[in-house]
């Protein structure tokens, strides 16, 4: 078959990084270490996007998620009981429930992947400059989802401000 059958060594290295750091995110005790593991995990996902020829998605992935993890880190630091003293413990209280949920969804996904025989794919080669196509599609065909997501983010932002604001002032 084509190169999809043997994705090459880079794919396996990236996958290993994603899986190991992804497990570290949920298993490490220190919330700051979890956040750094999340940075590595999301960067690995960006690497997979590059392998798939989706450079724009990879760039956006790093820009948005790594930047967002920085904010998560700030929260982690803020939640510490005394500044730079005691380390915060990220407890996993509902481990069993989480385990079953993961098995359900992960297993379902894997089973679906293996049971699907016919995959929809395009035989056309990727355009060299696919950023322009993404931009055009976002502004024409996928205008409505794009706007809905914008409104959703705006609502989330206003909600965050309302929650964070002092009641008295």
């Amino acid at each position: 078959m084509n190169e999809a059958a043997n994705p090459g060594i880079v794919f396996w290295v990236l996958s290993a990084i994603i899986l190991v750091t992804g497990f570290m995110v949920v298993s490490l005790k220190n919330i700051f270490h979890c956040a750094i593991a999340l940075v590595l995990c999301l960067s690995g996902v960006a690497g997979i996007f590059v392998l798939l020829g989706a450079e724009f998605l990879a760039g956006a992935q790093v820009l948005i998620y790594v930047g967002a993890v920085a904010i998560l880190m700030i929260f982690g630091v803020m939640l510490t009981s005394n500044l730079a003293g005691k380390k915060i413990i990220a407890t996993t209280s509902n481990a069993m429930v989480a385990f079953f949920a993961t098995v359900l969804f992960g297993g379902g996904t894997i089973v679906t992947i293996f049971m699907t025989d016919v995959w929809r794919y395009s035989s056309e080669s990727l355009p060299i400059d696919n950023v322009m196509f993404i931009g055009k599609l976002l502004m024409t065909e996928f205008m409505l989802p794009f706007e809905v997501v914008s409104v959703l983010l705006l609502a989330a932002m206003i909600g965050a401000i309302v929650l964070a604001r002092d009641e008295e002032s």
Partner: protein
Amino acid sequence: MNLIVAVAELDGLFTWLYTQLTATGLGEPWVTIIQYGALAAIMFGALSLIALILVWWERKIAAHIQQRFGPMRHGWHGWYQTVMDALKLLQKEDVDITARDKVVFFWAPVMCFVAAFLAYIVMPFGDGLIVADLNIGILYILAVTTFTVIALLMAGWGSNNKYALLGGMRSAAQAVSYEIPMVASILVVVVFAGSLSMVDIVNAQSGYMWNWFIFRMPYGPIAFVTYIIAATAEANRTPFDMPEAEQELVAGFNVEYSGMKFAMFFLAEFINMFTVSAIATTLFLGGWHGAFLPSWAWFFLKTIAMVFLLMVIRWTYPRLRVDQLMEFAWKFLVPLTFANLLLGAWFKWAGWYW
């Protein structure tokens, strides 16, 4: 993947390297790896040298603004003072404090240093003098520079010191806030260039000087000034150097670092300043375009002029207070840059540009 290696002016060197390597009977992938390694070594050496020169230059400019001489002992006007400083830092004891977070403390300077170099993969130093012309060029630079923020936060946390932690926190808050006006002012250029690729952006400014994006009235100068303000904040330089405000935080995030690790933070800071200036040159000052001189000479002349501007700003303006800093970003810069983006888009839509 479309990594296009277009190193035209270094072509001779690389063809020579290629023939030499294939003559030894090495396989094709190894030859490629060695070639990329050589390219990386050239970039690393050149940028380290630039950082050392910039440190010396900054000290001289600071001294002359304050009516002093600055370093005068080593060579003509102390030109190799920073080389001696670097050698001294290499020999110094690497103080390993006991209460630090071991892994985070160790990797923070490494990450900061590496993140500072990453942007140069898509930097067009001259006509055809670029490592890889990615089609997401400027987005790639914006993405990799976010790693610097993570590195500073890691340094702040790993040091287990309240001053360092405050420095790291301020750095993250500041970078997240100023990222928005910076991206909005860069987008004005992207709207007119019609591409994210750095080479396409430079090519959109070819011809005479009034084709440079800084001279596109009226949105060009506004975008340029807002970019410089936001980029100064992103590079953590005065008047926005809250992360290491000496009077309040001793030295901020790098207070616990010594020797080699401190040198890595220090050099990364100067490389970041050069990056900011190089991006300003590429986006607003026409990149490598210019008459008579070779293209790379124009690029370096413009970039160094930008560096000089940043240095003069640093030594002539006082530091902002941390709340003023945030107010300035959110209440002034963000509305202004978005209004300017709308203005630019309107001009593009109406066709009022050349």
